[in-house]
C-alpha cells in the first residue's frame, strides 16, 4: 500500500493517545479511605470478566478510530476488491492549437470539436463516480468540470490561434497530481500529433514522464490521435515586412507565404487591408508553398500603421489570417567598443553601410557611454575587448534584458570574465590549414537564409585564428563539428552573441562583408524592435504594457482575446499584431507509434484500441478508513453508554423495599 501524504504517517503514534491518557488518568488518582472494601473487591473481581473487557474494548475502539483517522488523512492507495475499475480522476488534456481547427476530410466539425465529442462519449460511463478536469494547452491549469455536457461551451475549450506544448501539458498535469494528490488518475490527451506541438525530442518529456511514473497513484494515459487526412486547406502569413525609407519616400515591402494542402493550382482571392482600407488581390497559387511579394507605398507623413491579409474560408479557418503592425521610420544606431583600433573601421562600416540612403548610423563607444545603455537608442552593441565587469556588466545586462543585442568578438587573449555564463577560452590558430564553418542554423538567427531562400556564403569563410567559447548557450554555427562559432544566449527580451573570430585579416576573411554585413544588419533589426512602440507578436506570448490592459480588436468587430486570438489590437498608444505561431502551419505530424514512444514506460491506451501495458490501478482508500473510524466511534459510544435501564430498575426495587415496614 502506498500513500499520497505519507508524512501524515508520522502521526501514527498518536493512535496510542487514548492509552496514554488512560495511564495518565490512573497516575493522577486521589487517595481515599474506604470502608466497604469488600464490595470494591467483589466489583473489581467481576469487572475482570465483563466490565474490564468492555473497558479494553472501548480503549481499543478509541485507538482504532484514531488509527483510522490518521490513515485516512495519509490517503492510502490500493487495489483489490475496493477498486471499482473506474479512475478517481480523469484529466482531459485538450490541444487547442490552431492546427486543431482543421476539419477532417468530408467532415464539417474541426478536430477539436471531434475531440470534445469523443471525450464526452468516453466519459459517459464514468459519470458520477469520477472527477473530471480540463487541462487545455493554453492555460495549462486544470479546470474542474462540474458537468461534462457544458464541455463544448467552455471558454477553455474553444478554438485558439496558439501553439500547444504537449510535454509541458504533461509536466503541468504531473505537477498538479503531485500537489493536488488525487487517487487513480487517467490523462486523456486529444491532439493532432503535430510535430511542432508534440516535440518528441524535448527533454520535458523525460522529466514529465519520470515525474508521472514516480507518482504512487499509477497514472495511465489515453491518447486520442486526430491525425486523419485533413480537408483541403490553405494558410497565409506575412513572412517578411520591411518598411523602406529611401530618399524620403516610405514603402512597405511585404512577403506573403501561402501554403496549400490538398488543393490544386488555382487563383486565390486574397483580402488585403491596410489601415482599415480593404481591397482584393488575386494571387495565382501553384504548388504547396508560394512566396508572394507586394510593395505598398505609404503616405510620406505616415507615422505607422497596421494591415492584414485574409484567405477565403477553407479546411481550417484559423490559418487564413495574418496581420502586421509597422512603426514609423526610425534611425537605427550601432555602437562599437574595441580595445584595438585596427578593427573598428570595419565594424562601423558593416553596421551602417549606406547611412545616406538607409537611416542607420554607427559610432565608437567609450567607457563613459557604457554605464547608461538601457536608455540609449542603440540597437546593437559590438564588443571587441576583454569582457566587462562590475557596473558596466550590470548596465550591459540591463540593456540586453530590455531587448538590446550585443555581439561579443574575441579579445585575443584568455579572459577569466564571463557574461551570462559565457566566456572566452584559449586562442587557437591554424594558419596553414584555415578552419571553415561546419554547420549553422539556416532557419533563424543571424546566419539564416535570405527572404529569397538563399544561403549566406558561410561556407566561404576561412578562420586563421579563433578563440574558444566557454559556457552553455545555443550554438548557431560550429567550427568543424565541435567548437562553437556563434553562440547565442537569450536574456529577457534581448540576446547576447559570442562570435569566435574577428573580421580582421589576421583572424579570418569575415571582413569581406558578405556574411558580416547581413549578420550585423539582422542583429540591428532585431535590436531595433526594442525602440518601437508597435509590436508583432505571436499568440501565447505576453502582451506589452502589462496584463491589466484592455485591448480593442481593429480587424474585426467581434470581441476577441489577444492572448489566444490572432488579430490587430489597440490599447491606448499601443498597437499590436497578434499572429498564430509560424509552426502551426506545418503539416508534419507524428505517427502514433512514434508518439507512444514519448510516453516511455507509462501505460498508454490509444482510443478505440485495446489497452497496452498493464498497471495495477490504485484507488484511494481513505473512505474505507473513514468509515471504519466512524464505526469504531459508534461502537465506542455504544460500549461507553451506562446501562441505564438496569440501574433504574434496581434503584426502583431498592427504594420500594426500603419503604416496606420490616417485621420485628
Amino acid at each position, binding site marked *: 500500500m502506498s500513500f499520497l501524504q505519507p508524512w501524515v504517517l508520522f502521526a501514527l503514534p498518536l493512535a496510542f493517545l487514548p492509552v496514554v491518557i488512560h495511564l495518565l488518568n490512573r497516575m*493522577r488518582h486521589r*487517595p481515599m*479511605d474506604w470502608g466497604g*472494601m469488600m464490595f470494591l473487591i467483589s466489583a473489581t473481581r467481576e469487572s475482570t470478566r465483563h*466490565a474490564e473487557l468492555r*473497558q479494553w474494548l472501548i480503549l481499543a475502539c478509541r485507538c482504532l478510530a484514531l488509527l483510522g483517522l490518521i490513515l485516512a488523512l495519509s490517503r492510502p492507495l490500493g487495489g483489490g476488491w475496493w477498486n471499482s475499475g473506474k479512475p478517481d480522476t480523469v484529466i482531459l488534456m485538450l490541444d487547442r492549437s490552431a492546427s486543431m481547427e482543421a476539419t477532417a476530410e468530408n467532415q464539417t466539425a474541426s478536430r477539436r470539436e471531434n475531440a470534445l465529442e469523443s471525450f464526452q462519449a468516453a466519459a459517459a460511463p464514468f459519470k458520477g463516480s469520477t472527477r473530471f478536469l480540463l487541462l487545455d494547452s493554453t492555460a495549462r491549469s486544470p479546470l474542474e468540470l462540474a458537468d461534462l455536457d457544458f464541455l463544448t461551451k467552455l471558454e477553455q475549450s474553444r478554438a485558439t490561434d496558439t501553439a500547444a506544448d504537449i510535454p509541458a501539458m504533461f509536466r503541468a498535469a504531473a505537477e498538479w497530481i503531485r500537489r493536488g494528490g488525487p487517487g487513480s488518475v487517467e490523462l486523456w490527451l486529444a491532439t493532432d500529433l503535430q510535430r511542432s506541438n508534440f516535440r518528441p525530442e524535448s527533454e520535458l518529456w523525460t522529466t514529465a514522464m519520470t515525474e508521472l511514473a514516480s507518482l504512487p497513484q499509477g497514472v495511465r494515459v489515453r491518447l486520442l490521435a486526430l491525425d486523419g487526412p485533413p480537408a483541403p486547406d490553405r494558410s497565409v502569413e506575412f513572412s517578411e515586412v520591411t518598411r523602406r525609407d529611401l530618399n524620403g519616400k516610405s514603402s512597405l515591402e511585404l512577403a506573403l507565404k501561402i501554403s496549400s494542402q490538398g488543393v490544386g493550382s488555382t487563383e486565390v482571392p486574397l483580402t488585403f487591408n491596410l489601415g482599415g482600407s480593404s481591397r482584393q488581390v488575386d494571387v495565382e497559387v501553384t504548388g504547396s508553398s508560394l512566396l508572394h511579394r507586394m510593395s505598398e507605398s505609404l503616405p510620406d507623413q505616415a507615422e505607422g500603421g497596421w494591415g492584414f491579409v485574409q484567405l477565403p474560408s477553407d479546411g481550417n479557418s484559423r490559418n487564413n489570417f495574418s496581420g502586421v503592425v509597422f512603426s514609423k521610420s526610425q534611425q537605427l544606431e550601432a555602437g562599437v567598443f574595441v580595445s584595438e583600433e585596427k578593427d573598428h573601421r570595419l565594424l562601423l562600416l558593416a553596421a551602417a553601410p549606406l547611412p545616406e540612403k538607409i537611416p542607420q548610423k554607427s559610432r565608437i563607444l567609450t567607457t563613459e557611454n557604457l554605464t547608461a545603455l538601457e536608455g540609449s537608442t542603440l540597437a546593437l552593441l559590438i564588443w571587441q575587448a576583454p569582457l566587462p565587469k562590475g557596473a558596466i556588466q550590470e548596465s550591459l545586462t540591463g540593456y540586453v534584458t530590455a531587448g538590446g543585442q550585443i555581439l561579443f568578438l574575441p579579445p585575443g587573449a584568455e579572459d577569466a570574465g564571463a557574461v551570462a555564463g559565457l566566456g572566452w577560452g584559449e586562442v587557437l590558430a591554424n594558419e596553414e590549414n584555415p578552419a571553415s564553418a561546419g554547420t549553422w542554423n539556416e532557419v533563424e538567427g543571424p546566419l539564416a537564409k535570405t527572404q529569397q531562400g538563399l544561403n549566406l556564403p558561410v561556407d566561404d569563410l576561412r578562420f586563421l585564428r579563433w578563440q574558444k567559447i566557454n559556457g552553455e548557450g545555443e550554438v548557431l554555427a560550429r567550427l568543424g563539428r565541435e567548437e562553437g562559432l556563434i553562440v547565442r544566449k537569450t536574456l529577457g527580451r534581448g540576446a547576447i552573441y559570442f562570435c569566435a573570430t574577428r573580421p580582421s585579416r589576421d583572424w579570418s576573411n569575415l571582413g569581406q562583408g558578405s556574411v558580416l554585413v547581413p549578420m550585423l544588419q539582422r542583429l540591428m533589426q532585431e535590436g531595433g524592435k526594442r525602440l518601437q512602440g508597435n509590436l508583432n507578436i505571436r499568440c501565447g506570448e505576453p502582451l506589452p504594457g502589462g496584463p491589466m490592459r484592455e485591448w480593442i480588436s481593429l480587424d474585426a468587430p467581434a470581441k476577441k482575446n489577444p492572448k489566444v486570438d490572432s488579430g490587430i489590437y489597440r490599447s491606448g498608444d499601443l498597437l499590436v499584431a497578434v499572429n498564430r505561431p509560424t509552426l502551426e502551419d506545418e503539416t508534419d505530424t507524428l505517427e502514433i507509434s512514434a508518439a507512444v514512444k514519448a510516453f516511455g514506460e507509462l501505460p498508454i491506451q490509444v482510443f478505440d484500441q485495446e489497452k497496452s501495458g498493464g498497471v495495477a490501478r490504485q484507488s484511494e482508500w481513505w473512505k474505507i478508513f473513514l468509515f471504519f473510524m466512524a464505526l469504531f466511534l459508534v461502537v465506542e459510544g455504544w460500549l461507553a453508554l451506562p446501562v441505564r435501564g438496569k440501574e433504574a430498575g434496581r434503584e426502583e426495587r431498592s427504594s420500594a423495599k426500603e419503604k416496606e415496614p420490616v417485621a*420485628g
Partner: protein
Amino acid sequence: MAEEPLKSFLDPQVAARLMRLPLQARRPMAGTMSGQHKSPHRGSSVEFAEYRKYATGDDIRRLDWRVLARSDRYYMKEYEAETNLRCHVILDCSGSMKFGENKSGHESKLDYGRRLAATLAYLSMQQGDAVGFHAVGAEVVKEIPAKRNPAHLRNIFELMNELQPQGPTGLVAGLHELAEKIRQRALVIVISDFFCPLSPLKEALQHLEFKKHDLAVFQVLNRAEIDFSFDRPIRFQDLESHFHLVTEPGTIRDRYLNAFNEHNEGLRHECAQFKADYRRVVTDESYEESLAEFLLDRGGGH
C-alpha cells in the same frame, strides 16, 4: 469535664422530644424490677391475664371468691406482670466506621452511631430500664453491664468518648460472645455498618434470637457508599487493613452497587427472618427522625 461527652452525643432537645415515645420491647422481658414492659411471669399489675385452677400452695389471697361463691370451684385470678428491661446497646467501632470523617467537619459513621446509642441509652434510662453498652471492634473492646442507675449513663458516655474506630470488624464474634454473656432476656440494639460476610452474621443473629433477646439493628451508612458517584481514578485505602486498590470508579460502579445493594438486601432479609427490627440510617439524614420512626414502630404511639 464530664458533661462534654454528654453534650456532644446527646442533644437535650432531641431527647426531650423523643421522651414522649417510650422504648418498648416486643418480647416479654424478665426484669427484676417492676416497669413498663411485659414479663413472662404473672404479676400484680392491674391488667387481668387469665384464670387457672387452684393448686396446693397457692396464695389464697388471689382466689376469686366470686367464682367460688357462684360455682363452688376454686379458681385463681392471675394478672400480667410488668417489669423493667435490660437494654444492651452494641456499637461497632471497627475501622470501617471511621468512614465519612474529614477535616471539613463531616461526622463519621461512628459519630453518628454514638449519637444513636447515647440517645437510646438516655431514653431507656429515663423510663427506668437498665442500660448496658458494648463496643465491638476486632473483638468486644469495652463494655459496661446493664444498670438502671442514672449515674451509670455518664460512664457509658465517657466510654463512648474514648472509642477510636480501628481494626477489622469483629462484629460476628462479638455478637456470639454477647449472646452468651447476656443471661436474661434483653433488648439488644446493634449499631454498625454491617460490612462483614452475611452468612456468619446470620448465625450470630440467630444466636441472639435463640436466647430470646429482642433484637434491633441500625445499619449506619454514608451517602458516598450508597451512591458511589466518583468520576476520577481513586486509590481506595481500606480502613480496616493496609490493603489498597486503584481503580476507575466509573468502570466498576455498576458492580459495586450491585454487590452493595445485594448485601444490604440480604441483611434486611436476615433481620426479618429473625424478627429483628432493621433500620437503615444514612449519616446525612436526621437521626431524630430515624429514632422517632424506630420508637413508633415498636409501639410507642399506642
